[in-house]
């Protein structure tokens, strides 16, 4: 019983602050706009660093909006935020390793296997 009271008190405390529906509609509209922009990157046939830069920019903005607002990360305690958002950073180490590995594989293929068909 005490536990139930504690729980409902905590729930009331946590969820007393609910963002207005308007905020979700604004984020939704932004996600639409950003998705349209990323689609236009392809439609307008941007190439090279401009293309990759814009794709990454729109991707990160969309991901940030989804995590912060839709997943309520902006209202969580810092200890949870860091526990969830920091570990994926090690993926960048893996990314670096695999870029190195891919370049090496490509080099060996070009140097030893690539014969004109």
């Amino acid at each position, binding site marked *: 019983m005490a536990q139930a009271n504690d729980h409902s008190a905590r*729930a009331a405390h*946590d969820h007393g602050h609910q963002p207005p529906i308007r905020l979700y509609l604004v984020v939704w509209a932004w*996600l*639409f706009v950003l998705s349209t922009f990323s689609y236009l990157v392809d439609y307008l046939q941007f190439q090279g660093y401009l293309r990759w830069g814009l794709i990454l920019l729109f991707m990160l903005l969309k991901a940030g909006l989804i995590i912060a607002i839709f997943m309520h990360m902006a209202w*969580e305690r810092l200890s*949870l935020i860091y526990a969830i958002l920091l570990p994926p950073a090690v993926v960048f180490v893996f990314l670096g390793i695999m870029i190195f590995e891919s370049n090496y594989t490509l080099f060996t293929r070009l140097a030893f296997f690539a014969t004109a068909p």
Partner: protein
Amino acid sequence: MARSDIADATVADSRPTRWRSIVTDWASDQRTFKQVSWGKAMMWIFLLSDTFIFSCFLLSYMTVRMSTTVPWPEPSQVFALHLFGRNIPLILIAIMTFVLITSSGTMAMAVNFAYRRDRRKTAILMLVTALLGAAFVGMQAFEWTKLIEEGVRPWENPWGAPQFGSTFFMITGFHGTHVTFGVIFLLIVARKVWRGDFDTGRRGYFTSRSGNYETVEITGLYWHFVDLVWVFIFAFFYLW
């Protein structure tokens, strides 16, 4: 009682500075994630592990694409649809993206109404979310059918590097599976909300425990994550 007073005092003390709050949370006894239910913490940790799975998929895709000597098929052309008498690049993928984003929006609003104890609106919004999710899976099935008919296989395709097929089927297949399971979870939780399980304290079939409206938020976390993964797949697989 005294103990919870102390705990509350610790929580209150940890408010002022950012770093102090992290240190006190992680250094405290009993629980690190204060004011976060175990269900929500576990969902976040599951999503973290899922992040690593999709990261590995996308990294393996990057590796085969970077290391192949054969040109990579042009996604813009591969995923074009012939509509209104001309080829529109990536149009189906764009529609799928908008559908999934819309479903995320309706889900976020469902969570909001759940905490306002508005059962009717919560259940309806969750059903709309599930419907949009099902539409997404349907479009994906259409896309798979089209590509398979055009000769795409995990080991070959008519346009270039054979790895295109294997990475495509693996990444979109795994994501589509996630969406499918999400739809099932949404329907189950929507039914509970509709029936008023979280108000009457009705016990769950599998857990024998009574749930509460936070279940809607936890289901929402999973659903938003599926949308989040699609953001990365859209950027790296379809646009790059």
